[in-house]
């Protein structure tokens, strides 16, 4: 069982200082909860990855190919229709539908990836039960730090966080 310290800061600068000092002191930062994206924190946290753009690219190109294939099949193979001697495979005129539907499907794929990579929707999470966690979506910055479960080590970490300006420190077990 790991002991997790949740340190709340009302200021981004203090929050970042705390994160850097904890990281330098060899404590493992588990996660950070912020009211808006704080890019600087990402380097201090475990690796973050997102494959959304690759997925979107593949899905978009795939949909565009399907759309073009449908146009080709219907206009050239299944129901060839000679309109003033124009080519049956009128590729410039066929471009719009693959383009528009490709973008739409890429967007849907991107959104699906967001859900998969963030684990959402997840309406209940143990963190929601932590007092003050609701401030993370409003005006507080919360740092989740793995701490030694007992003894002096933990007290030192708590003291350090207080010195930096943590408004509130809570301990949860995971």
């Amino acid at each position, binding site marked *: 069982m790991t002991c997790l310290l949740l340190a709340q800061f009302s200021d981004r600068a203090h929050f970042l200082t705390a994160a850097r000092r904890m990281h330098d002191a060899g404590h493992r930062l588990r996660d950070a909860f*912020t009211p808006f994206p704080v890019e600087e924190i990402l380097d201090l*946290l475990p690796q973050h990855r*997102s494959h959304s753009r690759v997925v979107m690219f593949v899905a978009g190109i795939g949909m565009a190919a399907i759309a073009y294939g449908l146009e080709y099949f219907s206009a050239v193979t299944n129901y060839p229709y000679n309109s003033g001697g124009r080519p049956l495979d009128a590729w410039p005129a066929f471009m*719009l539908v693959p383009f528009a539907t490709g973008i739409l499907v890429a967007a849907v794929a991107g959104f699906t990836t*967001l859900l998969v990579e*963030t684990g*959402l*929707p997840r309406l209940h999470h143990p963190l929601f039960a932590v007092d003050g966690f*609701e401030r993370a979506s*409003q005006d507080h910055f919360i740092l989740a730090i793995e701490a030694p479960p007992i003894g002096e080590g933990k007290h030192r970490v708590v003291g350090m966080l207080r010195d930096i300006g943590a408004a509130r420190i809570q301990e949860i077990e995971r």
Partner: protein
Amino acid sequence: MTMVAVAGREGASEVERWTLPSARDFETVNALIAAPLLERGSWSWRVWWTAFVVSVALTTVFLIMIFMVFTRGIGIWGVNTTVVWGFAIADYVWWIGIGNAGTLISAMLLLMRQKWRASTNRFAEAMTLFAATIAGIFPIIHMGRPLYWYWLTPYPNTMHLWPQWRSALIWDFWAILSYILFSILFWYVGLIPDFATMRDRARTKAPRAIYGALALGWRGAAQHWYVYERLHIALACLGVPLVVSLHSVVGMDFAASLMPGWQETIFPPYFVVGAMYSGFAMVVCLAALVRWGFRMESLITVAHFDVIAKVMLTAAIVMGVSYATEWFNAWYGGDPTDRKLVAFEFTGAYAPMFWTMLACNVAIPQAFWFSAVRQRISAVFLISVLINIGMWFERILIIWNTLSHDYTPSMWRLFIPTFWDWVTTFGSLGLFAVMYLVFVRLIPVVSMHEVRRLIAEERSS
């Protein structure tokens, strides 16, 4: 006066211009945006209710119009065998134009790192969504046989028929459909973190449950923000070409024909600029109303109106050059039909509307050269209303002039609008107003997380 002073202050940093000092605190921003939705009792909704009742009345008339069109046919409008397109198609082009600006503001400004989008993108995107939805109604009711609208879609059928993929009208269907669904997604993704804020601020059960469900359990974790940011920018990259293609296709509905005045290769870009122009004008109107109605003076500042006025000034010049290019081409091309059409535009039956259009779209917006005009919200609002009227005239005249003045003089006829034509236009405004009023009452009108980020950058700068 203070706000004007702040906006024009020498040496004010890029960020400082977009919020007033009274709103440079996270909690103040959250309270300012969330309070009208969560603490409704402490707000007076009298103006809202008045506007709502009027808009519902207009919407009802609009629905009656649709019923009449479906039961009696499009003959209730002023369309005739010569002028086969009328208000419905002009309204369609006008609304889809307005439907462009939200995504343009949001996506293009995001990619260009324009920080001022933070407090305007939400209500501009909502405008896009509602305007594009309304625009989608018009081609269907104008079909004459709306029950066959699904023939636009490719599906295996006993007649072995397929859509004509070479037709600009088929492109229209796919472009609008993709655009509306894309806009919903783009809008919703941007809303998720704000729904989480609403969930966490709600003190009563129902709002907490509803906003909580919409927030999908968003916790603002580092991974959440990381994936969100990457997706949001990728969507913006996709949104810009989509929005440009959408109105280009509307332009091609006209440009792909053989009618005099409808053969211009300039139409696609000219329609896109026109769309952006009328969309920005509508954004100004909505920004002024939201600012006044929700006391957002500290978040939607004079600097916002100033910068949008500059965009509109640029668009006014491009529009002027586009009109002039059309006239020049008609003269230089030497085709008598085209030349007569231009003469008809300036001196024919619709000339008063044409001159009004030129005044509203090209001449009057030149006032934006002066910072005193750009920084007076009432002036920017008034000119924006005129631009919207001018752009509507442009849409109707593109249709009327060409169709009324065909190659064969024996075919020449005018369009006389009927009662139902006016209902079509004003009723759609009512429907838009209903959707917008519902939106401002249920969803945060300004993006809270983006404004929080903006003020954090302002603090650290």
